[in-house]
Every structure is written in C-alpha cells, then in structure tokens.
C-alpha cells in the first residue's frame, strides 16, 4: 500500500514535469499569447485523460475483461453519426458546425441518449448477461459505422475533409468555454463515481461474491455504465474519439500497481493518461512539428508496450 503511494507520487511528478516542459519549452516572444493557449490544451488533456482512465477501468471491472474499452458500446460511432449527418444535411458552413456550443451539445446529447436508450429499452441488466449488451452495442456500433461511411462517400470531397478534421482527436481546436462546461460535467461524474469505488472493489470478485457481500450488483452495473457513457461522451464531444488509449493506460496501471483498489488503479491510470497525452502532444508539436498525430504516437508506443507484455507473460507461463 505504501509503495503504491510512492509510485503515485512519482507518476504525479513525471506528469507535472511533462506539463511544465510542454508549457514553457521554446516559448519565444509572445509568452502572453502562447502560454494560456498551451495551458488550456493541458487542461483538456488532464480532463479527458482522467475521464477515459476512469471509464475504462470501471468498464473492465464490470465486464471482467481487461482487453475491452467502453468504445465497444458504440458511443464513439454515435459521435461519427452525428457529425456526418450534420455535414450531410447542413454542410460545413452551417450554424451546427460553426457554432461550437451547438455542435458540442448536439453531439453530447445524442451520445448520452443513445447509451441510455441502449441500456433502458433494449437491455435490462437484471434480465440478461452483460455480454448480450456488449454484443448489441457492437452490432449497432458497426451498423452505424457502415451507414455513416456510405453517407461520407456521397459528401462533397472538400466538405469531407473538414468533416474528417472533427473525426480525429485533437487538442488544438478547443474553446475555453467548452472546456469549462466539460470540466463541470466530468467533476460531477467523478464525485458521483467516487462513492462507487469501494463497491467496485468488491465487484472485481465477480457477481456472485459481490452479491454475497451485500453489493446490489445489477444496480451497480447500471450506474457504472451510465457514468462511463457520460464520461466518454463528454470527452469525445470535447476532443473527438480518443477512447483507444484507455486500454493502454488501464493495463499499465494494473501492471504497475498490482492492487484491487479502484481508487489507486483509477488515479494511476489517470496519471498515465496525462503523461501519455501531454508527453505525446509535446512530441507532436516540437519533435515532429505537426507531421504526425497524437493517436499515431500513442498507438505506436502502446503497441510496443503490449508486445513486450505478451512476450513477458508467455515467458512466465512457459
């Protein structure tokens, strides 16, 4: 336990170093111009990093599976659907795109509505096993994805380029007011989610043991699904689809902390997210000079880590 606190502090220090480096590196001339902008991006990265860390870890606990991410529920696909429909019917110069609030709230509302509909009407946690829900989410997500790519083919190529911009995760186009709204939503979710952490510790023993110990398991699953959908939806509406790296930071955290405590696991995964995002963004801006994207770097490093993990585990097993 104590060693885990030390590890958390070390991670936090590395995170702060990354943030300082990103904030102050090569800041010639217009400090007053560049610094607040950089800090705003950092703010967005911290907020989304923790949102994704939280939702991935708790999602993996209730599905008892460490290679799933909440994106399997099709929430990201819903984001793509909303943006594509907007471009298809209204166009890139319409108020739905130009007004970022409108765009943000529309996408957010559509994603949350989609998730709630999926949980409330199609799926009842107490009636069916959770894998049925995952399967449904996957099928609907794939269906939405395919229909959307059909629409994308029909869109004017120039329009399509600006649509594509929205469909890649990016921290460079965030508006400060949106960040503010998103932070409030996420803060409320974290406060609500904090009370569930001990129950989630018990839930990692499996459904039967959790019920034995007095956890209302089916209700917990519902709460966690709704909460992580809100988190995913908010971070996606803010910066675009970026759930992919939840898998990496969650597994890093399991590996690094070797504990069942969700408070530690989530905090650890959140710090890993911040390091990955801020460090990665630093590389993108200053080393690669915007010749590559953050997702490419994170997937590259994360992929190497996974191969390392596989090799190590298979050697341990053999």
């Amino acid at each position: 336990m104590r060693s885990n606190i030390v590890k958390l502090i070390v991670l936090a220090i590395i995170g702060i170093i990354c943030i300082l480096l990103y904030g102050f590196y090569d800041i010639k001339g217009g400090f007053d111009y560049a610094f607040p902008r950089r800090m705003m991006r950092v703010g967005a990265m911290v907020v989304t990093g923790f949102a994704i860390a939280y939702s991935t870890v708790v999602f993996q606990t209730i599905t008892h599976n460490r290679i799933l991410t909440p994106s399997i529920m099709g929430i990201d696909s819903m984001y793509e659907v909303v943006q594509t429909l907007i471009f298809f019917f209204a166009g890139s110069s319409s108020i739905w795109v130009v007004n970022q609030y409108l765009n943000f709230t529309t996408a957010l509302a559509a994603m949350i509505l989609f998730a709630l509909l999926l949980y409330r009407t199609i799926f009842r946690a107490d009636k069916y096993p959770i894998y049925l829900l995952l399967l449904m989410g996957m099928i609907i997500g794939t269906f939405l994805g395919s229909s959307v790519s059909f629409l994308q083919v029909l869109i004017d190529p120039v329009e399509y380029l600006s649509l594509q911009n929205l469909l890649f995760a990016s921290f460079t186009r965030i508006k400060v007011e949106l960040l503010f709204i998103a932070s409030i939503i996420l803060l409320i979710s974290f406060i609500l989610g904090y009370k569930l952490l001990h129950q989630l510790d018990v839930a990692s023993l499996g459904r039967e043991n959790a019920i034995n110990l007095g956890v209302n398991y089916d209700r917990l699953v519902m709460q966690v699904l709704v909460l992580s959908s809100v988190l995913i939806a908010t971070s996606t509406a803010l910066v675009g689809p970026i759930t992919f790296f939840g898998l990496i930071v969650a597994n890093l955290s399991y590996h690094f902390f070797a504990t069942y405590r969700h408070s530690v696991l989530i905090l650890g995964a959140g710090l890993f997210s911040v390091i990955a995002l801020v460090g990665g963004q630093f590389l993108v801006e200053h080393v690669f000079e915007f010749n590559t994207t953050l997702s490419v770097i994170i997937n590259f490093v994360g992929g190497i880590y996974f191969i390392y993990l596989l090799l190590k585990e298979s050697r341990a097993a053999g």
Partner: protein
Amino acid sequence: MIEIKGLTKKYGNKPVVSDVSLTIRPHAITSFIGPNGAGKSTLLSMVSRLIDADTGEVLLDNKNVKSWKSSELAKRVSILKQSNFLNVRLTVRELVSFGRYPYSKGRLTPEDEQYVEKAIEYMNLKEIEDKYLDQLSGGQRQRAFIAMVIAQDTDYILLDEPLNNLDMKHSVQIMKILRQLVDELGKTVVIVLHDINFASVYSDYIVALKNGKVVKNGPTDEIINSEALREIYDMNIPVQEQNGCRICVYFNSHT
C-alpha cells in the same frame, strides 16, 4: 429461520426446481443431495438471492429475502459458489478482509481486523496469508474463500459443492471445520454435496432432490438406507455401518 415456500425456477420451458417447500433447521448442517441436474445448486442460489425465483418465496425471519436490504442480508446469510476464478490478484488476507465489507464498507476497523485474524487462524491460513491466491493449490484457495465467509460472520452459511476438486485430506478438513462452526459457534450450514458419504457422516439433516422436486427430507439416519437411496438415485446402494458411521458402498452396485 429460513423457510422456503413453493419455489419454482424454469429455464425456457424446462422446470429445474419445481414447487419446493422446506424449512432449514437452525444450528445444524443440512445437506442437499441428489443426482446431477436435480436442481440442488439452483435451489441454493435462489435461497441466497443470487438468482430470482419464477414463483415462490424465501423467508428469513418471516421476511422475504428480496425485501431485505442487500447489505443487511449480507450480515445474516453468506453463500459460496463452486467456481472461484478471480480476475484480480489478491493475497489471502485481502480476500478474507473482503468478508468484512458488509460491516465496514471497505474501511476496516480494529474490530474487523480481529474477525479477519480469527478467520485466518480458524482455517489454518496464517503461514500463507500474504501469498497471492494464484500461487495456491486448489485446496488452499478453497480454504481462503471459506475463511472469507467465516469473517463475514453470518448465522447462515450456504456452500455449493465446497469439496469439488479437493483431495480426501482437504475434504475431511473442510467438513470438520463446518462441523465446528455449527457445534462451537452455533452457525447454520446448508451445503450441496456430491459425495453421499460425506453427507452421511457429517450432516444432521439431508434434503434429497430429484428432477427439481424434494423426494426425501429428514434426519440423516432416515435417509441413509438402501430403500430411500434407491428412490433418490435409482440404484441399489448397500449401506454398511463402520465405527458408528453409515457408509454407502455403491462402487460395484448393480442397478
């Protein structure tokens, strides 16, 4: 007192448990026996609210278990199922500490620590308390899970085939501990058993199920005899008396 009234559970159209009514006698070991697919585990799962019954009800102190608050019920009734595969890495002590969750909600008090300590000693786990569960043998792991249930300190302990995959020595060890729990601490144990001889030697009462129905229910002496066993298992099972224990010798039986 636990009363079971008209419990029925169907999977599709097939009834697994149909219209079972019985009373669990307090401060005793009651064994559920019967052939494969008789509905023993399903019945136990319904009693412990792990699965919902289609019809019928389970009463604990005259109150339906479904209207009990889940966290309060966890202080009265505990259940241990047969498969205990875990996704997380836990030490024995961490697992046993989970048994105090209904009381402490995750923050152990010194009193909780005492219960954990006692449960660990009771199950002879002191030397391996800091080992991870995946480093242990099947028997040790099973003992760790039982220690968790002991730390939970409930009046009723329900166990679904706790002897599965255990060798003779560990099986005897666990049955003796269950006996102690009843005799020394006044617990009530309900256990699903496959091995009829363990049921015969250690239990006070036996409930025999067949095709989802109770076919025999009574003190152990009344059930462990060739006529009753033939009715339950459709098999000729000679019973021999050995050192005061009734042993069923069915290994070379002709049906």
